[in-house]
């Protein structure tokens, strides 16, 4: 499969990352970026923090940008959060700080380091980006092209779900499984590859993750993240629907994790704009009750897992989790045991875990 991220590699990556990117990506000549042709569509460009700092601005220019961006945030925040539970002014102001962090080279707040700042994007573009954030409700993470998740910085773009803070815990659940380090794991519906990369980094010799998705865009982004973290020898990306690409490892898996689409279809139109209007439906819509995919995963797990194998599913919370837990312990009780509901940090029963008998 070919990668469609024309990254420039003169980036703030550690040298190992940079060299692995060199190996894996075809790199357009950097001179092309100085041509006056219109900028490529945003999803074709590397994340902000990986672009070379070829632009400059004065501190006072940047200060003006912040003042302007904050005034927009203060004016729009209350309306946005009241209308559909979107970001309030405080969160938007944090995003401005993060945007500046990704767009500049040195900490912009340091004073007395000189008047010029190096930017990874033109100052005018910064204005355009923030306007799109407020007016189009374009998710902040698509604007900067990354999301910080656990201790990772994951590349994301339109077409792939932005990994959620709740999901960070799936990696911790895996880390508690005895002998996980050398096991064969599957992350079904890997999206940006967040969970797979989180697991992959903890694995030892012999350990492996099969990360699957139906979406080619998701796999493309996942591949970038796998490469950035030098996990090509630990994570294998496969395209296909749920268990379909895993036939060759049927009954051999040490563990199976998934955060499948679980939003009930009827809720999709009412989602906050950042989610409903910008993130892929394929990643969100779980059918009428939201459990179409979860049920399919429950049914397939018995044959996918080896004896003693572990599963962890993220759900829409409380009711879905209870339903899934009941299903696994009653209807499929012959196959599974030790079924648990695990709350997220907001106290919602977010995960169901258990073991293959």
């Amino acid at each position, binding site marked *: 499969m070919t990668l469609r991220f024309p990254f420039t590699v003169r980036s703030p990556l550690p040298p190992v990352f940079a060299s692995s990117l060199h190996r894996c990506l075809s790199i357009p000549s950097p001179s092309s970026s100085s041509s006056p042709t219109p900028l490529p569509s945003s999803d074709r460009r590397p994340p902000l923090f990986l672009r070379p700092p070829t632009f400059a601005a004065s501190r006072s220019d940047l200060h003006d940008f912040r003042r302007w961006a904050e005034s927009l945030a203060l004016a729009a925040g209350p309306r946005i959060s009241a209308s559909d539970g979107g970001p309030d002014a405080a969160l938007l102001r944090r995003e401005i700080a993060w945007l500046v962090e990704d767009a500049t080279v040195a900490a912009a707040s340091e004073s007395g380091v000189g008047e010029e700042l190096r930017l990874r994007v033109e100052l005018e573009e910064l204005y355009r980006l923030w306007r799109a954030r407020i007016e189009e409700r374009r998710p902040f993470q698509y604007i900067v092209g990354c999301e910080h998740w656990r201790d990772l910085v994951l590349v994301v773009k339109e077409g792939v779900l932005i990994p959620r803070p709740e999901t960070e815990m799936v990696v911790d659940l895996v880390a508690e499984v005895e002998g996980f380090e050398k096991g064969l794991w599957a992350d079904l519906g890997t999206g940006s590859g967040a969970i797979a990369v989180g697991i992959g980094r903890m694995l030892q010799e012999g350990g492996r993750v099969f990360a699957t998705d139906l979406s080619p865009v998701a796999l493309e982004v996942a591949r970038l993240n796998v490469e950035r973290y030098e996990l090509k020898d630990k994570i294998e990306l496969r395209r296909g629907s749920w268990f379909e690409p895993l036939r060759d490892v049927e009954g051999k898996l040490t563990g199976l994790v998934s955060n499948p689409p679980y939003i009930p279809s009827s809720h999709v139109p009412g989602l906050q704009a950042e989610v409903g209007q910008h993130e892929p439906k394929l990643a969100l819509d779980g059918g009428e009750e939201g459990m179409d995919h979860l049920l399919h995963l429950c049914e397939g797990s018995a044959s996918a897992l080896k004896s003693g194998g572990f599963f962890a599913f993220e759900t829409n919370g409380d009711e879905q989790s209870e339903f899934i837990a009941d299903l696994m312990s009653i209807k499929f009780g012959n196959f599974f045991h030790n079924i648990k509901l695990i709350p997220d940090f907001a106290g*919602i029963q977010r995960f169901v875990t258990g073991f293959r008998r």
Partner: protein
Amino acid sequence: MMARPLLRWASFTSLHTSSRLPFVLLPRTLNPRAPSLAFSAAASNYLHLSDDQLMAQCDMDTYKASGPGGQHRNKRESAVRLSHRPTGIVAQAVEERSQHKNRAMALTRLRTLLALKVRKAIDLDGYAPPSELLQILPAKSTIRGKDVGPQIGPNNPKFALGMQALLDLIFAVEGSVSETAKILGYIVYGSFLLSTGALSRLILSDDSLRVTVNELRTSKGMRPLR
């Protein structure tokens, strides 16, 4: 268990902040069921706990927005609040970009708060300054001796330990900086090698340390350090 509603994030204003000071919430009244903070014997040990051990003494929760969270939300708050059960001290972090990092930041803040708020009784007769305290003393001060290593500043995670020991001593002499300098100088070398001025500068170099010392001094009717 449902999360309790947290503070109002709206009060957050600063975009660039020092990692050590802000966003800490102190309980108005400390946990009534918790052992008294004043001169608790176990207290000084909290800072010696590993991150995991300290986490085990904490309840963690996140800001609970209304609604189901998860896939429904873009960036549901990744803010984290830690409540340290034994002392009732609460630390939180909102400004990091992942929940994981906010948790680490909240833990760092908790350590600072424990250093600032939890006092250990000192017996001045047999007093010997712990090495953590020697490490934060001014570099030029000959007190420190050769084996102590370079001076540790407020940005070093170990600073909290030294700060805690220094505060223990300052509280034991009821806020007198000259007395503290005298004791440190006298005990270590048998002469006064740490000037009051140098010690004051150290105290003033860290905002939270300064505030704590000045609160004590004000309560004892002394002039705040400036």
